């Protein structure tokens, strides 16, 4: 019996014995099977700044997990060795959702991140783990491309505290050509997440010649301001040539500076530059009095002056989850 997977907008029709595009949702005897459930290939303790999340418990560690598989196939994927591989070829550990919270607590982590590959692809593992983690009094973070249908996303968001969602470009042709996806569902995921109270941060990987024009950057930041709000943190991330996109150079620092300038001029309060270590580029400033509130260098937080989620001087509320 053929199956149609309605988890993500791809709607893969899966023949018996075959998997969907994500490689990990398999039709076995007419039943859709999540074959990586409870079997992450990566389990690590990371600084939360690495996700990147800058407005969520700064300076804390986060237990980060991933199984293999992804429903997108970005030509520039930096984690392609786990996202674009088959579970048959990749070693994994046994880690049931009920063990996850215990493991996080043992390593002094206050939250768990579903990251590295694509938590949407291993949806059932993410969903069950999020429930268990929440019951244990910890928090959940998703790092995702946000390519999922609205109904399952709403279901998942009940247990999610924060998410870093990629907005790769405000261009459907970019999504089609580079990522084998489409733009509209991603925009919907962003809007729905924000409306459900998830702390949303957006990452845009700036790739030379593909999405680095003033017009594209301006359109993207304008959309964020108009649809998510000017308080939404935006991370411009530096591209490095890898996977199927080794023909392009790394993003010049000036391009990232220009992107930040454009985003600020469009009214975004919190704009960061990632994958490029330079003083001040990752610091958080009060949007009202411009006092430096959080000082970062790489993944280290050297100073955090935020008090009860507010600027200590002018008492302006700073968007995020701070304790």
């Amino acid at each position, binding site marked *: *019996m*053929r*199956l*149609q*997977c*309605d*988890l993500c907008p791809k709607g893969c*029709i*899966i023949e018996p014995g075959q998997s969907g595009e994500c490689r990990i*949702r398999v039709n076995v005897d*007419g*039943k*859709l*099977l*999540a*074959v*990586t*459930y*409870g*079997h992450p290939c*990566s*389990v*690590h*303790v*990371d*600084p939360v700044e*690495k*996700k990147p999340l800058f407005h969520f418990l700064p300076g804390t560690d986060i*237990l*980060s997990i*991933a199984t*293999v598989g992804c429903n997108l196939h970005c030509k520039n994927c*930096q*984690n392609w060795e*786990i996202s674009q591989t*088959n*579970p*048959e*070829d*990749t*070693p*994994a*550990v*046994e*880690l049931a959702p009920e063990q996850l919270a215990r*493991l996080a607590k043992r*390593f002094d982590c206050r939250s768990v991140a579903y*990251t*590295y*590959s694509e938590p949407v692809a291993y*949806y*059932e*593992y993410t*969903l*069950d783990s999020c429930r268990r983690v929440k019951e244990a009094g910890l928090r959940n973070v998703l*790092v995702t491309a946000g390519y999922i*249908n609205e*109904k*399952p996303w709403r279901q998942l968001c009940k247990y999610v505290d924060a998410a*870093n969602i990629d907005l790769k470009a405000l261009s459907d042709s970019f999504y089609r050509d580079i990522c084998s996806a489409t733009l509209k569902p991603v925009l919907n995921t962003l809007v729905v997440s924000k409306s459900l109270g998830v702390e949303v941060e957006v990452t845009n990987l700036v790739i030379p010649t593909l999405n680095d024009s003033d017009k594209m950057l301006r359109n993207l930041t304008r959309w964020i301001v108009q649809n998510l709000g000017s308080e939404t943190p935006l991370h411009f991330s530096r591209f490095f040539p890898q996977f199927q996109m080794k023909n392009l150079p790394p993003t010049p620092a000036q391009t990232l500076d220009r992107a930040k300038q454009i985003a600020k001029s469009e009214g975004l309060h919190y704009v960061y530059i990632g994958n490029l270590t330079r003083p001040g580029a990752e610091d958080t400033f009060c949007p009202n009095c411009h006092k430096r509130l959080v000082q970062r260098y790489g993944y280290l937080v050297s100073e955090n002056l935020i008090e009860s989620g507010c600027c200590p001087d002018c008492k302006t509320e700073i968007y995020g989850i701070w304790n």
Partner: protein
Amino acid sequence: MNITQAGVRTRRRFMKFTGCAAVGLAVPVGWLAAQIAPTRCVEAVRSRLYPGPLKRLRDADIKRPGRWGG
């Protein structure tokens, strides 16, 4: 009168024939479509068996920050 009655009879016969034909076609076509159309599902069954190799979960590996982005 006879012509009109004959006309009504003809129309009724035609309507009856058309209705029967529509039902007779719709039922097998619907059945066939149901057989061909894939079963739709969102949530998958949680598999307990991993199809690939298994490795041990070691504390030293967990403590080390992930080599992957994100």
